[in-house]
C-alpha cells in the first residue's frame, strides 16, 4: 500500500511533512513497519486504526517523543527532523489526558511555550487570551486547572498547543476521555478551529465515525502498516480490503471465490450463492479467494426486481436500536445483518433479502489471510 503515499494531496504543493520508510519497534515487536506518508499544508489528516496498529507510535515519532529505529526521510516544513529533539520541532501535541501542568493557572499553561521562547509578558498575555478566545474560554485566564471540567481542560490543551503557531497540531485521541455529547460538540469545534487557524491537523483515533466526520484524508493503519489511504468517502464506500471493510463498519463481510471479473463489477460464489458487486481491488482473477461486503442498511426485505443478489433468509432475534432495528438472518450465503427502519415491523420467519450490486463491494484477500480462509472453509465443509 505504500505506493499510495506519493499520490496524496501532498504532491500538489510542497508537503509540510514527508515520511519515508519509518520503522520502529519495542523490544523486538515491530510497531511501525516502514511507514511512508506525505501530509499537505493545511490538511486534516486522521490516523485511524485499532489499538496496537501503530497510529499513536507514528504520532509520537512525528512529535519527536520517540526516536524511530530507522527512517529514510523525515522532513518537516522543508527541514530534516531525523534526530531532532521534540523541543526543536515546531509541532505540538494535544495529549489524550491533556497533560496540563497542575501547578500553573490556565493562563500560565497557555503561555508556557511563549515563556520558553522568551516572549515579553504583555505580548504573552495578549496571545494567550487570543488563543483562549479561539477555543471559547475567554474568561478562564486566571483559573486553576483543577477548577475546570473535562471539556474545558481539553480546550485549554488545544489553546496551549495552538498559541505557539505549530507547523502541525498533533491530536492523540483527544476526544477519548469525553462523554458522548461533548465528543460530538468537540468534533464540530475541531473542524471550526482548523478552518479558523488554517493549521495542519493530524488526529489519531480508533473511531471511524470521528475520522469520517472531521478529516480531509484518512490513513487506515493495521499492525504497523498503512492498510488504505483516501478521503472519507472513498474509505466509507470502497474499502479495499476485508480489514478495511470491517473497520469502516460493514456489518456483513462474507468470503467466497471469484467467478467472473470485469472492469467495474464482479461475481463471487459464496457457499453456492452467486453475488454481484462493485470491484474495489486490482488484479482480481476468477478463482481467487475474495470477500464481499454489504452494509446492513443496504439489504432490503423484498423480492428483487430481477434475480440479482437475491437470498432467502430465516430471521433471528431482532435487536432494537432506537432509530432502527437490526435483524440477523440465516441465509445460504451465511449470516446477514439487516437493518430495518420501522421498529415495529412484524417479520415473517422466512423472508426474501436483496441488495443492489452497487452497494456491495468485492475485493481481494491478502495472501496471509487467504491461507486462513482455506482452513476455515475446509472446517465448514466437514460440519
Amino acid at each position, binding site marked *: 500500500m505504500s505506493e499510495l503515499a506519493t499520490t496524496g494531496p501532498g504532491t500538489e504543493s510542497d508537503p509540510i511533512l514527508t515520511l519515508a520508510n519509518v520503522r520502529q519497534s519495542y523490544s523486538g515487536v515491530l510497531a511501525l513497519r516502514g511507514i511512508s506518508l506525505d501530509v499537505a499544508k493545511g490538511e486534516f489528516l486522521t490516523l485511524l486504526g485499532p489499538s496496537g496498529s501503530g497510529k499513536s507510535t507514528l504520532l509520537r515519532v512525528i*512529535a*519527536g*517523543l520517540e526516536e524511530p529505529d530507522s527512517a529514510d526521510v523525515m522532513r518537516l516544513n522543508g527541514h530534516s527532523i531525523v534526530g531532532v*529533539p*521534540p*523541543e526543536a520541532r515546531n*509541532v*505540538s*501535541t494535544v*495529549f489524550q*489526558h491533556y*497533560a*496540563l*501542568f*497542575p*501547578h500553573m*493557572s490556565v493562563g500560565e499553561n497557555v503561555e*508556557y*511555550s511563549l*515563556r*520558553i*521562547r522568551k516572549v515579553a509578558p504583555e505580548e504573552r498575555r495578549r496571545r494567550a487570551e487570543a488563543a483562549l478566545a479561539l477555543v471559547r474560554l475567554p474568561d478562564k485566564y486566571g483559573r*486553576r486547572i*483543577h477548577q475546570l471540567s473535562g471539556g474545558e481542560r481539553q480546550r485549554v490543551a488545544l489553546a*496551549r*498547543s495552538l498559541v*505557539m503557531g505549530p507547523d502541525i497540531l498533533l491530536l492523540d485521541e483527544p476526544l477519548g476521555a469525553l462523554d458522548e455529547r461533548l465528543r460530538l460538540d468537540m468534533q464540530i469545534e475541531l473542524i471550526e478551529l482548523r478552518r479558523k487557524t488554517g493549521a495542519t491537523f493530524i488526529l489519531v483515533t480508533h473511531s471511524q465515525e470521528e475520522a469520517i466526520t472531521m478529516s480531509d484524508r484518512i490513513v487506515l493503519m493495521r499492525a504497523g502498516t498503512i492498510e488504505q489511504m483516501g478521503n472519507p468517502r472513498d474509505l466509507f464506500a470502497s474499502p479495499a480490503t476485508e480489514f478495511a471493510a470491517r473497520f469502516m463498519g460493514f456489518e456483513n463481510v462474507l468470503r467466497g471465490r471469484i467467478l467472473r471479473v470485469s472492469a467495474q463489477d464482479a461475481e463471487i460464489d459464496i457457499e453456492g450463492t452467486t453475488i454481484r458487486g462493485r470491484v474495489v481491488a486490482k488484479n482480481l482473477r476468477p478463482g481467487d479467494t475474495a470477500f464481499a461486503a454489504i452494509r446492513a442498511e443496504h439489504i432490503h426485505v423484498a423480492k428483487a426486481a430481477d434475480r440479482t443478489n437475491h437470498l432467502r433468509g430465516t430471521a433471528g432475534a431482532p435487536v432494537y436500536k432506537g432509530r432502527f432495528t437490526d435483524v440477523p438472518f440465516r441465509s445460504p450465503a451465511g449470516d446477514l445483518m439487516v437493518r430495518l427502519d420501522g421498529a415495529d415491523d412484524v417479520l415473517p420467519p422466512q423472508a426474501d433479502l436483496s441488495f443492489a450490486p452497487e452497494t456491495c463491494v468485492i475485493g481481494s484477500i491478502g495472501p496471509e489471510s487467504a491461507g486462513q480462509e482455506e482452513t476455515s472453509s475446509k472446517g465448514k465443509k466437514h460440519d
Partner: protein
Amino acid sequence: MSAMRKGQAGTGVEQAAIGTITVLWVLGVLLPILSLLVISFIQGKGLGFVWAFSTKAYADILVDFRIEIVLRTLRIVAAVTLIELLLAFPFALWLAKGLKPGWLKSTLLILLVVPFFLSPAARTIVWRSILGSEGLVNIFLAQTGISPEPVSWLLFSEFSVHLGLIGPYFPSMVWPLFISFSLIDDELIKASRDLGADAFTTLRHVVVPLALPGIAAGLVFTAIPMLGDNVASTLLGGGNVALIAESFDDLIRAMNYPGAAALASLLVLAMLLAFLVARLVLARRQASEGGIFAEMQA
C-alpha cells in the same frame, strides 16, 4: 434513604477513628511535649522538682559554650542537609524517571532501606580506619608522596563529622524525593518538551515545582533526626565537635532535668519556626493543588 444512612454510618466510623487517633496523639505526643515545657520552667532538686515557676533552667543552658554548641549543631545540620539534597536530587530523579522498572531498580530501592537496619555505630566507626592518621587515605597520601606527614584534619574534626553524617541520612532524603518524582506524570514532562522546553527548563518549570512538597519533606525528614544524632559527633568528633545530643547526655547525667527540658523546648521551638517558614513557602502551591500534594505536606 439507605444511601444516606450508609453515609452517616461511614461518618460515624470516621469520627470514631479521628477521635481515637486524637486521644492517642494527645497522650503520646502532646502531653510529653507539654510536660517538657512545664519541667523547663521549674527547678530540680535531686531526683525531684521544686514546684515553683523559674527561668533558671534557661539561664543555666544559655551559657556561652552551650549557645556555641547549639549554633554549631544548626550549622552542621544545615550544611549536611544541603549536601544531602544536592546528592539525592539527581539520584532520586534518575531512580524515578531515568531507570526502567527491573532488577536494578528493585536492588537499589532495597539498598536504600538496608541502612535503617544497620547499627549506626558500626557503620560510622568504619570511617576511623579510613580517615585516621594511619588510615587508608593517609597511607595513600604518604605512599604517593602527596603528603609525607599524615593529614590530621581528616579525623576528629568537623570534616569527619560532616562525612559521617552524610551516609546515614542519605536514604531519608532520597525516599521523599523519589516518591514525589514518581508521582509526576511522564506526560507532563513530555508535554513540556513538546512545547519547546529543553531538559533543564523542564526541570526548572515542571519537575522542581511539582516535587516541592517532596523536597520539603526530605529536608524535614533529614534535618530533624540529624539534630538528635550523637553517633557521628561522638565517634568521629573526638571531643572536638560537640553537638546538642551530647549536651543532653551531659545534662541528664548531671541530673539537671529542667535544663535538659529547656534545651529540648528550645529545639522544639526552632523546629516549629522552621515548619512555619516551610508552610509559608508552600502556601501558594497548597492553595492551587488539592489531594495528594496537600497530604504530603501535612
